[in-house]
C-alpha cells in the first residue's frame, strides 16, 4: 500500500522525534552524572572564582572589547570611505590593509603589539591600549568591508535628494548615507562585535597581571589549580552573559529602525 506524499512526510517527521527521544533517554540513563557534575559543575571551584570572575575578568573582557570596537569602528569607517574614494591610492591602501589584516591570524597581531612593537620602538603600552589596538586593527578590516557594503546599499535616490536640497557631498554622507548604512549593517556589525569579544581572549598571550585577567585567562588560570573543568564552564557562561543580550539588542534595534513598522525616533513637539 503506497503512502501519499503528505502521509510519508508526517511519518518521517515523527520518526525524527522518536529518534531524538531515544538519544536523550540513552544519555540520561548511561551517563555518569556524578562524574559529570564533579568535572563541570563543581560548586566549590565555582564559588572560589567569585567575585573575581565578575568584578575583574568580565569587566576586563568588556573594557578590552569596548576599546577594540571603538577603534575598529572608527578605523573601519575610515577604511570604508577610503575604499569608496575617487582617489585611487586611498583605495589601494585600504585594500592592502584589509586583505592583510583579514588574512593573518589575530594572534600574530597581539604578539606583535605586545612584544615586537614595544621592543622595536621603545614604547610601553597600557594593557587597555594593547588590547584595544590589536582588536581594533584586526576588527577594522572586517568592519570596514561591512560599512562599505552598507554605504553602497543606501539607495541612490536618497543621495540625489540630499544633493538637490543643497547638501554638500560631506554633509550628505554624514546626515543621510552613514546613518542609513548603519541601519542596514546592524546585523553583520553585531556579529563582528561578538567575534571581537571572543577574540579579546587572545590578550592572554601578553602576560597579564592578576588585575588585568579577562575571562579566558582567569578560566585557564583557575583550571590549572583545580581538578575540574568548572572554571572553563563559568568563563564560557560569562561570555554568554555579554553576547546573548547583544543579539537581542541587535534584533530589537533592527525592528525599531528597519522594516515597515517604524516608530518615530526623534519626535519634535508640535
Amino acid at each position, binding site marked *: 500500500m503506497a503512502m501519499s506524499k503528505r502521509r510519508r512526510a508526517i511519518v518521517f517527521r515523527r520518526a525524527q522525534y522518536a529518534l531524538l527521544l531515544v538519544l536523550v533517554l540513552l544519555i540520561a540513563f548511561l551517563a555518569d552524572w556524578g562524574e559529570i557534575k564533579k568535572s563541570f559543575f563543581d560548586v566549590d571551584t565555582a564559588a572560589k572564582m567569585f567575585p573575581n570572575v565578575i568584578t575583574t575578568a568580565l569587566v576586563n573582557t568588556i573594557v578590552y572589547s569596548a576599546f577594540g570596537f571603538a577603534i575598529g569602528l572608527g578605523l573601519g569607517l575610515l577604511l570604508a570611505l577610503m575604499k569608496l574614494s575617487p582617489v585611487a591610492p586611498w583605495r589601494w591602501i585600504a585594500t592592502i590593509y584589509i586583505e592583510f589584516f583579514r588574512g593573518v591570524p589575530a594572534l600574530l597581531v597581539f604578539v606583535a603589539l605586545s612584544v615586537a612593537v614595544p621592543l622595536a620602538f621603545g614604547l610601553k603600552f597600557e594593557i587597555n591600549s594593547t588590547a584595544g589596538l590589536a582588536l581594533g586593527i584586526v576588527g577594522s578590516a572586517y568592519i570596514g568591508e561591512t560599512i562599505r557594503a552598507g554605504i553602497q546599499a543606501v*539607495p541612490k*535616490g*536618497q543621495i*540625489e*535628494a*540630499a*544633493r*538637490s*536640497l*543643497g*547638501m*554638500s557631498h560631506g*554633509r550628505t554622507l554624514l*546626515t*543621510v548615507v552613514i*546613518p*542609513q548604512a548603519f*541601519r542596514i549593517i546592524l546585523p553583520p556589525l553585531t556579529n563582528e562585535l561578538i567575534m571581537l569579544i571572543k577574540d579579546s581572549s587572545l590578550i592572554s598571550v601578553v602576560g597579564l597581571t592578576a588585575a588585568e585577567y579577562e575571562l579566558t585567562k582567569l578560566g585557564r588560570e583557575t583550571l590549572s589549580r583545580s581538578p575540574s573543568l568548572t572554571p572553563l564552564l563559568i568563563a564560557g557562561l560569562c561570555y554568554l552573559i555579554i553576547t546573548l543580550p547583544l543579539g537581542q539588542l541587535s534584533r530589537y534595534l533592527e525592528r525599531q*529602525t528597519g*522594516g*515597515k513598522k*517604524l*516608530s*518615530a*525616533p*526623534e*519626535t*519634535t513637539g*508640535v
Partner: protein
Amino acid sequence: MSEEVPPVDAAEPDLAVEITGLTKSFGSLEVLKGIDVSVRRGDVVCVIGPSGSGKSTLLRCVNLLEEPTAGRIVVNGEELTDPDVDIDAARTRIGMVFQGFNLFSHLNVLNNLTVAQRQVLRRSPEQAQETALRNLERVGLSDKVNAMPAQLSGGQQQRAAIARALSMDPSVMLFDEPTSALDPELVGDVLGVMRQLADEGMTMLVVTHEMQFAREVADRVLFMDGGYVVEEGPAAQVIGDPQHARTQSFLARVLDPTHQGPGD
C-alpha cells in the same frame, strides 16, 4: 549661444531657466543632442515624450544632478555650468521632486522637511519647524508630522517630498515624473498640490505623462523625442493640435481617443 549673459546680480531676471546648446552623453550614448529651452518666471512648462527621449535627463541637468557634456544652464541669472559657481547654494533655490519620492527613510516627516533648512540654510530649529509645518499644511499633511516615510502611502510621500522641496523656499521647482510611481487613485492628490502651486505662481518645469494635467495647467509644452525638442508651444496647441508627425503619433498612442479633441 548668441544670447547675452544676464547679470548675475539681477534681482528678478525675466527668465527663470535658460538652457542653451545642452548636450549630454553617457559614454558613447548621446541622450541630449542640443537642447535650447527657456522658462519664464511664473510659467509652468511640461515636458512630454516617449521614454528614452531624454526628458528626465534634461530635467536632471537643470540642477546639475547630471553634469552636462556641453552647453549652458542659467537659473535665476546664475550660470550653473560655470565651474566657479557654488552649486550647493544654487540647488537650495531649485526644488526637485523625484519619481520615487526619495524621502529620507531614517527621518520622520518633520525632520525630512527641516534637516536641510537647518544644515544648509542655517535656519534656527524653530524657524525651520515653522516653515515645515506651513508647507505640510499646504500639501494637506498636517496630521503626518511625526510619521515615518514607510508609514505613508505613495501619494502622501510624494506630497511630503513636495513640501520638503518647498521648505527651502525655491524659486523654481523641477518635477521628474512625480506621479508615475503612484497607484492611479493617488495621482489626483499630487496633481492637485501641483496645480495649486502653479496657481500661486510658482515657476515649474514638469516632466510628466499626465496629458490632462499638462493641457490644463501648463503654459507651454515641450515634446521631446530622440534627444531633441521636436515641438514646443502653448499647451492647447502642442497637445490639442500637434504639427509634427512624431508628436501626433506619440499623442495618439498616449491619449484616450475619446479625450483627443481640443474642445473638451
